[in-house]
């Protein structure tokens, strides 16, 4: 009966030894390889430091003009450009310019990194079912595991600062772009593929000229989600020493400063809305262009 009353668990000492063993193994690994791993990421870190300094050093009117031009190039919509300029002016007026630039810097790098790694991975996944069955559970883990669980080892390995922050953001933000690239390519009509094969297109042509263009709406939905999730991680990244809008939010949370929290929170929202509208409009525009080409 005893067997049913109590779950037959591992002994307390064994369990403790197991946990200790894992901890010590990780510590040894970190002692041994931490330096090398850190050096590996150094170029990325210096780029981020340089990029943040650049954004902070540039005069604010030039930065606003750059943002407006980028918004125009992306969205080709006057209201969105006006909205962008107005948001950045408001952010600056409330004294959040520097933190916002720091956040824009890390989010831009994080998004670029996620897209650069995520789209190829999504394409690989769409090519092979085995790859998909391996990567999907990994993506599930990345999206659901509580962030502090992987932040602790990342911090022990790389310390606190920009690179660990970037890794934390990317672990959380990369899954949508991978999933949606994979999905988009898999959803391309079989008939269209057969037609392209009938015209004698090579494997490479099929991928780059048929599948990816037709998957673009999905891929852009992925890019958009990746940006949103990266912005959602700004506060968590600040918990391991990333400068930006997350720092005042943390300060507000632990001291119940309502206004400070709200202002910086809304600045993050404003960035999210701008990124979202611009990237969505850009995606739509690409699509319209393709459809127009089709119709003609």
């Amino acid at each position, binding site marked *: 009966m005893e067997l049913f009353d109590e779950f037959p668990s591992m002994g307390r000492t064994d369990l403790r030894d197991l946990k*200790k063993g894992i901890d010590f193994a990780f510590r040894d690994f970190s*002692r041994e390889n*931490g330096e090398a791993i850190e050096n590996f990421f150094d170029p990325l870190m210096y780029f981020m430091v340089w990029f943040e300094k650049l954004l902070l050093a540039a005069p604010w009117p030039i930065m606003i003009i750059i943002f407006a031009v980028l918004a125009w190039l992306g969205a080709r919509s006057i209201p969105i450009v006006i909205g962008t300029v107005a948001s950045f002016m408001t952010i600056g007026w409330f004294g959040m310019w520097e933190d916002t630039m720091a956040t824009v810097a890390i989010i831009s790098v994080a998004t670029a990194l996620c897209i650069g790694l995520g789209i190829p991975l999504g394409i690989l996944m769409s090519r092979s079912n085995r790859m998909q069955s391996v990567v999907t559970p990994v993506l599930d883990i990345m999206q659901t595991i509580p962030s502090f669980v992987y932040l602790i080892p990342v*911090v022990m390995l*790389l310390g606190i600062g920009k690179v660990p922050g970037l890794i934390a953001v990317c672990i959380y933000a990369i899954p949508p772009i991978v999933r949606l690239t994979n999905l988009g390519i898999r959803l391309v009509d079989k008939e269209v593929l057969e037609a392209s094969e009938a015209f004698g297109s090579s494997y490479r042509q099929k991928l780059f000229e048929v599948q990816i263009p037709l998957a673009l709406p999905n891929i852009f939905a992925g890019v958009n989600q990746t940006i949103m999730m990266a912005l959602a991680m700004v506060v968590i990244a*600040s918990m391991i*020493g990333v400068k930006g809008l*997350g720092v005042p939010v943390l300060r507000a949370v632990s001291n119940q400063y309502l206004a400070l929290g709200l202002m910086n929170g809304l600045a993050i929202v404003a960035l999210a809305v701008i990124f979202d509208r611009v990237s969505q409009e850009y995606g739509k525009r690409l699509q319209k262009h393709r459809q127009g080409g089709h119709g003609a």
Partner: protein
Amino acid sequence: MNKFVKGIAVAGLATAMSQAAIAACGDVTVAEMNWASAEFMANVDKIILEEGFGCTVELIPGATMTTFASMDTKGVPDVAPELWTNSLTAPLAAALASGSMHKLNGMPIIGAGEGWFAPGFTLENNPEIKTVLDLIERPDLFPHHEDPSKGAFYGCPAGWGCQLTNNNLFRAFDMEAKGWLLVDPGSAAGLDGSIAKAADRGNNWLGYYWSPTALAGKYGLVKLDWGVPFGDKDHWDNCLTQAECAEPQKTAWNFSEVNTIVTDSFMKNNDPKAAAYFGKRVFPADAMGAMLVYMGDNQAGGEDAAIEFLLNYEDVWSQWVGVQAANLIKKSLN
């Protein structure tokens, strides 16, 4: 019936004998606060009082404010082994003045409190560095990874009260001009992680921390002397701990008062030897740190840690009690 009487007689005789060996001590209630070092200290006190002085000890769980209030109004528990009294200055002074409480030990743990810490090896490798004043001249020893030309000083996580104090002291010691960067670790996990990473690799680390903590013990963090005295309490309260502090002055960190406090009834009703024990009971920083690490590594409670301490640090605790009590305690451990 006969047997029963005999039993009582034997028990009485045994009590009388043990009382002859050690003077009457009586019942003592000891506060067991809800953090690791206090749990450990309460259990050390319990074993020493029971085995060495023949008291009957009951541990009463508590926290700083609630325990003090209960001692003040109800006289229970009798003993608060590790009472942090910076927030209780006025009521404690009143209680001490009225004689309802007695302070038996003003520093039960060496080095307890907040301050700036560095790993022990940093100081050993650079013997010319004795104080914070010496140390802030050497930012080159603590290169910041993101900008190696600057020294990294790890402040207090964003939003904690100590963040303001650290920012102001950073300014008071003019550290920016000396080539330092104030790094915001973001959270306690970030601060701990930065220490673990640096100490594991033998890199120097300088920052804000507090003691007694398992982490300080595990990585051998040493609380630095400031090289300047604690200045003006008024300046500390109204400038250094505030967001707006126009001209912060160099000062040591505000001294964290940790006391062992007992009630008046304990002094009157219990063995004076027990009171003398509390006066001598001072935990060296390394012993306290080692025990906190032991508790963390083995998920041990205060009682396990107390036994471990008594087994391994006889040279420390035998100084606190007489030879006779020490022998009794040693015997009980076997």
